[in-house]
């Protein structure tokens, strides 16, 4: 690796490693090598030519942002495809269990249990997609949705099996701490951000 290539690799150090970054480095290196040869043919020494080529290269910040945004777009599209797959998959699995439940044992409702397990799949991928697409924190809304999912299951089991004895409040109390903790965490982060803006 010559001096020019070393400098170029150092310039791109802060950029996330991916195929596009390697292609850009190769392209930049090739073009800068041509520029150096041009400057040498016009009478500069090789050291002067390399120095001038690197000085004229400029600040890589705009290029870094474009590369990061392209990489993010690819990641978001991939997350979108995973979400779509999980929704179809979950619907198929839930549909199958619904059929088996009502075909073989219509008097006992049990499809809610595998449904509860499967529904976490598209739900977590949905929040991951939102986080990548909108660049927002999803901890709080995810915890709220999860709370209602667990609360719904506990309520169903209680009322279905032992409607005369109310016990769902106990697991509900335990799970409620999750969204409450996430709420106060989000408020604390918002406060920190406002403090750093004011400073």
């Amino acid at each position: 690796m010559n001096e020019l290539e070393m400098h170029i690799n150092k310039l791109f150090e802060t950029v996330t490693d991916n195929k596009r970054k390697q292609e850009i480095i190769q392209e930049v290196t090739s073009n800068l090598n041509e520029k150096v040869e041009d400057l040498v043919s016009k009478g500069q020494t090789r050291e002067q030519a390399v120095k001038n080529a690197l000085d004229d290269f400029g600040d890589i910040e705009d290029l870094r942002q474009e590369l990061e945004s392209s990489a993010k777009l690819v990641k978001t599209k991939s997350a979108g495809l995973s979400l779509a797959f999980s929704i179809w998959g979950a619907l198929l699995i839930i549909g199958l269990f619904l059929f088996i439940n009502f075909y073989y044992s219509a008097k006992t409702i049990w499809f809610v249990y595998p449904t509860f397990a499967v529904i976490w799949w598209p739900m977590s991928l949905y929040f991951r997609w939102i986080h990548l697409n909108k660049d927002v924190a999803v901890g709080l809304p995810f915890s709220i949705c999860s709370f209602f999912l667990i609360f719904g299951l506990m309520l169903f089991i209680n009322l279905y099996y032992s409607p005369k004895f109310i016990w769902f409040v106990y697991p509900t109390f335990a799970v409620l701490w999750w969204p409450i903790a996430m709420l106060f965490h989000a408020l604390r982060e918002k406060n920190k951000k406002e403090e750093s803006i004011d400073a």
Partner: protein
Amino acid sequence: MSLISSDIIRGHLDAIILRLIYEKDSYGYEISNEIAVRTNNEFHIKEATLYAVFQRLVKKGLIETYLGDVSFGSRRRYYRITPSGKAFLQEEISNWHKVRNVINIFMEDLK
């Protein structure tokens, strides 16, 4: 000779580069060289800015890339304009004429 401030040109870089690629398929160094030659060295585009513009134009689908002949151990990356790029360029040229006419109203008489 004073160089033109890059802040003034910044908003038109996409159109400038698209125009050069429209004329013929080109690669990075050829384009930066061409800009310096055509402006009589009044304007030099930084290579980092040029590559950022390439990324932006490719992402918008206005240009596409392909690998060409070998140079300095690797194949040169060429850029060519797409039909969307040609339409965008036409629009930018039309907008530029409107902007130039407006600015001329206020700048022309002052020497």
